[in-house]
């Protein structure tokens, strides 16, 4: 009869390995891409148009300003992607919120206000209304995805189409203009950048240091294990999609305030740019992986590319072609990273 005797295993020194301690954060590589792109435009700038790309404060502000709205949406979409889902409805929700918020922010000068008795309201009212509309859209997404087994892609595709239709129906296609100065202030100057970075900061903390964040990663990493570990998966998904909706609503408010009008065509294709920013920043469409810092860098890369091409006076066509290439390259890189990490995909 063999005897199995328990002995303590060989003790390994704990975490004193220098190489492990000085590990690079996962965003390091994508940050290098950002720097590389910026330097490439700097070099081309001197060669082609005899100007500096980077040493131009106003251009940098405009560059970030242009992508701030995308960035706000991307912060929400990143969380959805971490759960293993996707949100295609954000661009349309931007339009719907912009319409509703603008309709409650019209000044007394408006020629045919949407609500003649509701002009010159304090700016807080349209803001709250806009966020509520975003939350409602997110709640619809979250409820349907968590309670039925519709794939998020299809569900949010439906909401994308319907929300765009609602935005048009709201004023029968008429733009809503002449907004109050207090409301317009939300989108003026560098405010959108401030709002973007504040949003990113809040959700960076939420994802890394709160139970909400831990559960978000757990659900995306392995939904069945998350359920067995006692996480209320449907309730959590509802929360994540609602937050994404609120952030789309916020983006709609900023967009309408900056344009000082609400138009049903606003936010067209924004959802795809936001998804691109998250994916370039390292979020994995299979779930469980992604960070807000990466998404912010991804957003900036989109900004650098569009601003750089304009700066070099290259046609917008090329800009789109290159942007598409960058997105695909980011996903290919993601596949390689996952294959290196997960031995299952090797067999």
């Amino acid at each position: 009869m063999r005897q199995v005797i328990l002995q303590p295993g060989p003790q390994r020194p704990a975490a004193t390995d220098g190489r492990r301690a000085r590990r690079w954060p996962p965003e390091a590589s994508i940050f290098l891409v950002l720097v590389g792109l910026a330097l490439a435009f700097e070099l081309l700038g001197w060669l082609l148009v005899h100007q500096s790309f980077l040493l131009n404060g106003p251009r940098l502000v405009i560059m970030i300003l242009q992508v701030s709205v995308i960035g706000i949406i991307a912060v929400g979409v990143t969380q959805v992607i971490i759960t293993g889902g996707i949100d295609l409805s954000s661009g349309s929700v931007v339009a719907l919120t912009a319409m509703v918020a603008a309709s409650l922010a019209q000044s007394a000068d408006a020629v045919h206000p949407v609500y003649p008795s509701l002009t010159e309201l304090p700016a807080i009212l349209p803001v709250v209304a806009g966020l509520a509309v975003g939350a409602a859209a997110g709640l619809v997404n979250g409820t349907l995805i968590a309670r039925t087994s519709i794939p998020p892609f299809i569900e949010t595709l439906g909401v994308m189409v319907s929300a765009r239709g609602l935005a048009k129906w709201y004023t029968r296609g008429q733009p809503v203009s002449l907004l109050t100065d207090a409301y317009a202030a939300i989108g003026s100057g560098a405010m959108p950048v401030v709002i973007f970075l504040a949003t990113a900061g809040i959700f960076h903390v939420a994802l890394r240091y709160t139970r909400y964040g831990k559960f978000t990663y757990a659900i995306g990493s392995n939904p069945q294990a998350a359920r067995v570990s006692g996480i209320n998966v449907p309730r959590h998904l509802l929360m994540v999609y609602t937050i994404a909706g609120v952030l789309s609503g916020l983006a709609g408010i900023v967009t309408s305030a900056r344009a000082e009008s609400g138009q049903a065509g606003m936010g067209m294709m924004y959802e795809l740019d936001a998804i691109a920013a998250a994916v370039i920043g390292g979020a994995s469409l299979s779930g469980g992986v992604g960070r807000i810092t990466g998404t912010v860098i991804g957003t900036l890369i989109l900004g650098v590319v569009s601003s750089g091409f304009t700066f070099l006076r290259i046609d917008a066509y090329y800009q789109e072609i290159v942007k598409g290439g960058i997105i695909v390259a980011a996903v290919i890189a993601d596949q390689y990273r996952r294959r290196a990490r997960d031995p299952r995909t090797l067999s």
Partner: protein
Amino acid sequence: MDAEATGAPGDSLLEARHISKSFPGVAALDDVSLRVARGTVHALIGENGAGKSTLMKIIAGIVPADAGELRLAGRYLRLESPRQALECGIAMIHQELNLMPALSVAENIWIGREPVNACGLINHGELHRRTRALLERLQIDLDPQAQVGTLALARRQLVEIAKAFSHQSQLLIMDEPTSALSERDTAHLFDLIRELKSQGKAVLYITHRMDELWEIADQVTVLRDGRCIGTERPGKLTRAQLIRMMVGRELERIFPHERAAPGKVLLAARGLTLEPHFRDVSFELRAGEILGVAGLIGAGRSKLAEALFGVTPADGGQLCIDGAEIIVDSPCIALGRGMAYLTEDRKETGCFLTLAVLDNLEMAVLSRNFVRFGFVRGTEVAQACADMSRKVRLKAPDLREPIANLSGGNQQKVLIGRWLLTGPKLLILDEPTRGIDVGAKAEIHHLIAQLAGRGAGVFMISSELPEILGMSDRIMVMREGCVTGMLERAEADQEKIMTLAAQ
């Protein structure tokens, strides 16, 4: 008996020589040789994990062997894919059915070999004519145009069988083909098998139903722990002899779990039922007691564990915890009642593979502790996790490493640690040491015994009889969804359990 009437086996059709195969950390097959003669049915039996399925998969070209060679009709055979095996005349009927539910019966049978017309499009008329002819010859009553997804499991099995026959194979491998079949369908299948034999073809047959051996098999090979224990004519063996061959290893000395005075009843199940998985299951689990649950794969043990933890709630019966009847219809409720559930499948329902060891450890306890105003108390939880990783003797250089980098045994320790952090008083363990090396196994046994010693109730499913016998205070045996016996530790032995588990 019919099987013995065929007499001396003919020429050898398939020979497997010195086949070895190991998976990371486990030797699945160790120098196994097998000879299947034409016109015979060769049965392969053994406990779960003895290596039967691995051997079949090697012969069917699904996985490559590490060492050894295959010969078909005397010719050296080098298989790189199941398709190649099919072309050589080896077809396999899988235990997990490999059919496409959205396609019709005919499309499934002829997939990849559909008759085409002059334009290269599928000729559906010809396809259905062929299918009808095949089904008629096999006397299988199925509509060629029926969608496979709409068929019951047993009917799907018939589609698989028809598919395998359609290949005109020399060797047919069947992995527990009768597990889902009714008695009538089984008898029908045996008729088909006998017809194959009379045509000089051979069948390699895996089964857990021992009665079938005497009915259909000409030869039986017993595998145990990846080794070939022997090949014999079933007529020369008794049932008891076969069981001894299957389980006969020396019982390893597993941690003697000191039996404390049985405490109060923690968990009482009365008539729990979840069709078609299990029915009318009743038992009691006391504080400080380890209840071993034995049975073959498919006996409904894992589904019962899922029902106890609310993953797939039972649809009948009562569950009492601490004497109060409760309805556990989600894992959140079970967790709140101090239960813990280590699932059978580490990868599918256990690990968060993209996350760090630390995240994997803390995920369950965060629902109950270490959180203030939504914020995780990082340093405290990290300290608790570090303590736990020492307690379970986790070998990980850094808790911030991804769990995917750990070995199976260490991943299992992380999952056990995840539940121990919640301070459970009732543990449900499903195959707690599957696929784990001996050292880690002993450590996990030690932990389980320790927990029971401190008054926790443990419900432990295991397919390894030595583990069941070495650890349990009482043993519940299940077969085909029913409890077939409840044995005290003193009266239990391997043969008694096997007899109750496989009839």
